[in-house]
């Protein structure tokens, strides 16, 4: 007793697919006793019509031809459940995303819709009633990345009374925000607003902070992740170190200053900045004289706390988590190869904006005095160029970095405050300043701080007599422009943080074309991912500014708190099942199962496979690996899929 309901979705489907013809065709399919077309099946009257038909005609199986199951499968399962049917005796046939939206010819689209419905009918005819199960939830969250988004998410979750582990790759939390001097549009001191939050993380009783650590392996699923975290050896005993910095002072091995974007120089053993949390030194073996030449140990000799341990080894900690927030932030686009006419990094006074930010900062390597890298002189004419490696199809990076316009205006203002007789020039494509108070801010940069905005791109930069000649176009005036600059600052685009792609694979979440992590739905699931229990916060999902990152972190935290406030989660009944009478006991299923859900059971003539339903996530890998095909996924049996293929090819 099969019913077919064809949704018109207003004109979304009906404009391209003749739903009446689909209904007529469905009526002649094997087992179909009822078929009708409804304007909006998901609406209240639509669902009522389905329930009425089920009850009046005694339907036992339903095919819903409409949108993607990602959209409304749950809606219709609930609806047919209300009508007294087993909710899983439903097949969603996608005639919208996979048919009406991608075709224009009505006859062909209708034909295809009929094929798809026939396929769905064949499949649901072989469907058996299923019952959902449940699994317990581990009440602990993992936040990956200790930038402002990770900090916010960790604090929000921890404040709700849920234990949080915050994992940070580098030796301190704070992320890119800790590098900023001031923030737009209020010109708040960045570290003044961030540092208290960092300290709060350190002191929060529900937060366990792990620096120098990375997620290495992920097992399990929503509510029950088991994650290996590698804490890399830093040669410093964290509990002993007092942050006195004597080791850094005395260390003879120079090392690049990553925190200051190489604007200054650091040591092999160091604390990146004075507000670091935890305030603990860590040693980079690749620059350390002891590890390179075999002789030094100065830091061990001078450390008053006995905190140096050269023998320290990596530790791998395995912990259980119910939910994960990814907040790995962003990196900067490396412009040098793609913009050869800007000198490919040969001119020391062409720098990216983050390095300039460090030169502006009172806690930076120059103590807040702006010095150009080549000769340490204070620059007078400064050129900012926007959209380097963003909004630029020619280098394959079409997207907007979303913060460049704002931070260029900010840096122009700060430059004027630092050097009152300086002049800033800003080459822009458009001024994108859509946030609250943003447009006013960019205008103030021009009216109150005298920044000269030039609409156009820069074609070439070359040195002449200790200065850099910037040749560009002013597309509004239709003129060529040539500026003799002391310093050129590039507003480079944002990329995903280093290693983000690898982490995404480990968490089984997707990434977009630029490598940013993909949200579950661009509008309705902006912080979820396609893997249940894994959420996104901040710039790992796409370029965004601090308020947006913090807001998303709060939203991700709310999702985590909601998830972890449940004691049990309903699990899908679409799990694997073994026909033990036919199992040959080769255990290929157990070899491929990512969830450890297959175990051996004794049978009369040896061992056979058995699926632990509460662990199975229904991925179907065992299904494929089983040579005789006697392990099958409930609701997705081989015979159901074969029937679909046969109908499509008919």
């Amino acid at each position, binding site marked *: 007793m099969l019913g077919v309901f064809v949704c018109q979705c207003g004109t979304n489907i009906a404009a391209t697919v003749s739903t009446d013809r689909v209904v007529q065709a469905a009526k002649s399919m094997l087992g179909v006793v009822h078929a009708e077309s409804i304007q909006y099946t998901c609406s209240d009257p639509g669902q009522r019509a389905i329930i009425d038909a089920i009850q009046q005609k005694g339907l036992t199986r339903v095919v819903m031809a409409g949108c993607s199951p990602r959209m409304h499968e749950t809606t219709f399962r609930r609806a047919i459940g209300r009508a007294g049917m087993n909710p899983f005796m439903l097949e969603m046939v996608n005639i919208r995303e996979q048919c009406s939206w991608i075709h224009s010819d009505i006859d062909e689209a209708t034909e295809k819709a009929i094929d798809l419905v026939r396929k769905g009918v064949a499949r649901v005819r072989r469907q058996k009633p299923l019952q959902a199960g449940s699994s317990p939830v581990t009440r602990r969250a993992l936040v990956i990345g200790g930038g402002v988004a990770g900090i916010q998410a960790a604090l929000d979750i921890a404040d709700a009374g849920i234990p949080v582990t915050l994992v940070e790759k580098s030796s301190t939390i704070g992320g890119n925000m800790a590098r900023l001097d001031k923030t737009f549009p209020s010109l708040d001191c960045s570290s003044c607003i961030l540092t208290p939050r960092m300290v709060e993380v350190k002191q929060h009783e529900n937060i366990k902070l792990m620096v120098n650590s990375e997620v290495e392996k992920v097992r399990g699923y929503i509510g029950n992740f088991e994650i290996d975290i590698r804490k890399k050896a830093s040669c410093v005993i964290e509990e002993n170190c007092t942050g006195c910095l004597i080791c850094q002072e005395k260390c003879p091995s120079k090392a690049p200053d990553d925190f200051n974007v190489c604007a200054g120089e650091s040591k092999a053993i160091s604390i990146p900045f004075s507000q670091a949390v935890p305030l603990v030194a860590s040693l980079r073996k690749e620059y350390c004289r002891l590890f390179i030449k075999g002789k030094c140990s100065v830091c061990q000799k001078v450390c008053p706390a006995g905190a140096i341990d050269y023998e320290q080894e990596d530790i791998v900690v395995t912990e259980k988590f119910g939910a994960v927030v990814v907040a790995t932030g962003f990196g900067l686009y490396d412009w040098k190869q793609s913009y050869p006419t800007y000198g490919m990094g040969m001119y020391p006074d062409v720098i990216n904006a983050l390095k300039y930010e460090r030169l502006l900062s009172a806690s930076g390597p120059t103590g807040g005095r702006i010095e150009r890298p080549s000769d340490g002189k204070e620059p007078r004419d400064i050129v900012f160029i926007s959209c380097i490696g963003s909004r630029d199809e020619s280098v394959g990076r079409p997207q907007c970095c979303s913060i460049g316009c704002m931070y260029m205006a900010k840096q122009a203002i700060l430059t004027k405050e630092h050097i009152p007789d300086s002049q800033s020039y800003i080459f822009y494509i458009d001024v994108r300043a859509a946030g609250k108070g943003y447009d006013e801010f960019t205008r103030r940069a021009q009216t109150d701080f005298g920044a000269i905005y030039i609409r156009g791109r820069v074609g070439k930069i070359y040195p002449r007599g200790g200065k850099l000649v910037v040749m560009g176009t002013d597309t509004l005036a239709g003129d060529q422009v040539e500026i003799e600059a002391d310093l050129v600052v590039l507003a480079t685009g944002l990329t995903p943080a280093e290693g983000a792609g690898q982490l995404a694979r480990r968490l089984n979440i997707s990434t977009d074309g630029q490598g940013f992590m993909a949200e579950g739905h661009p509008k309705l699931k902006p912080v979820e991912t396609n893997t249940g229990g894994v959420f996104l916060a901040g710039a790992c999902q796409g370029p965004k500014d601090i308020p947006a990152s913090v807001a998303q972190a709060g939203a991700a935290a709310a999702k985590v708190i909601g998830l972890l406030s449940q004691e049990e989660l309903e699990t899908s009944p679409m799990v694997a099942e073994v026909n033990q009478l036919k199992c040959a006991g080769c255990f290929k299923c157990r070899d491929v199962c990512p969830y450890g859900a297959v175990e051996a059971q004794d049978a009369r003539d040896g061992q056979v496979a058995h699926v632990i339903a509460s662990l199975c996530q229904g991925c179907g890998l065992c299904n494929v690996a089983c040579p*005789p095909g006697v392990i099958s996924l409930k609701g997705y049996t*081989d015979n159901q899929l074969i029937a679909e293929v046969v109908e499509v090819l008919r």
Partner: protein
Amino acid sequence: MSMNDLIATIKKVLEEVDVVLGWTRSPAAGVAVPARFHTPDEADGAIFDSTCTHNLAVHLPRLKNSKVGIVAKGCDARSIVQLIVEGEVSRDRIRVIGVPCPGVIDVKRAWRCFGFGKKIEDAGGRVHMEGRSMPREEILLHKCHQCQDQEPVIMDLAAGDVKSVTPPPPPDKTGIRERFAAMSIAERREFWREQFSRCIRCYACREACPLCFCRDACSMQTREPHWTGGQVNAIESEMAQQVRTSHLAGRCTGCEECERACPVGIPLMLLLEEQNRIVEELFAYRAGMSLEDKTPLLTYDVNRDGGWR
């Protein structure tokens, strides 16, 4: 190796196992046939010569609950290793007796040359049959040409010096493989259509294969799942064989038993050799070479870069 070496070794192994799998001579057919030796008296009938073509490893999964000794050629040993790797045979329940193998002959072809049932003898590098003879290398099974596995990869005892064997000659370049390689895709399609039109769905290929251990759940035959139909026609038979072939990806040790067992002479090894070549090219992997190996198609690890363990 003398037969006495072999018999003595089997008798020694019989002290610790229930049964030894080996060969004895068939009085009727004049060639070696598989035999099970339970007692020292029975073991007196054991032989090993170039008519011992059978891969006795096929019997191991069926003797799961006994301690078993097995006489193995180098190639058979690979099948044993693969069975242990796949958990079908437990290492501590078997004793492997390695034999020095000079290559085995195509008995069906010998019978076609000399007549069925004639006693075949192998002496001085020639195969003799009631007064007539031919060089052994002209009638070897294809797998024995350029054999890389003369020394068994797994062995508890050796009957004779398994390292002493001289390598067999390269194959004759006029055979079916060369003709097949020269065919276009359309010609190959036609070739297989013709070959499988002779298939009688007897499943001898499966029964002879040591690694086809799914027993009554074999997907060539079942309707649950219904991947192939049971009809005897070229399309269904080819589909069934393709299913069997793909199930052997990364598992087939190339023992050629399926082709030898086929009563209508379908050259099944053309499919498996090509697949084994692809597996070796993609994964640098030959099945049954080490007890520590895992079949490459089962070892994708999402946590590892590149995904392969």
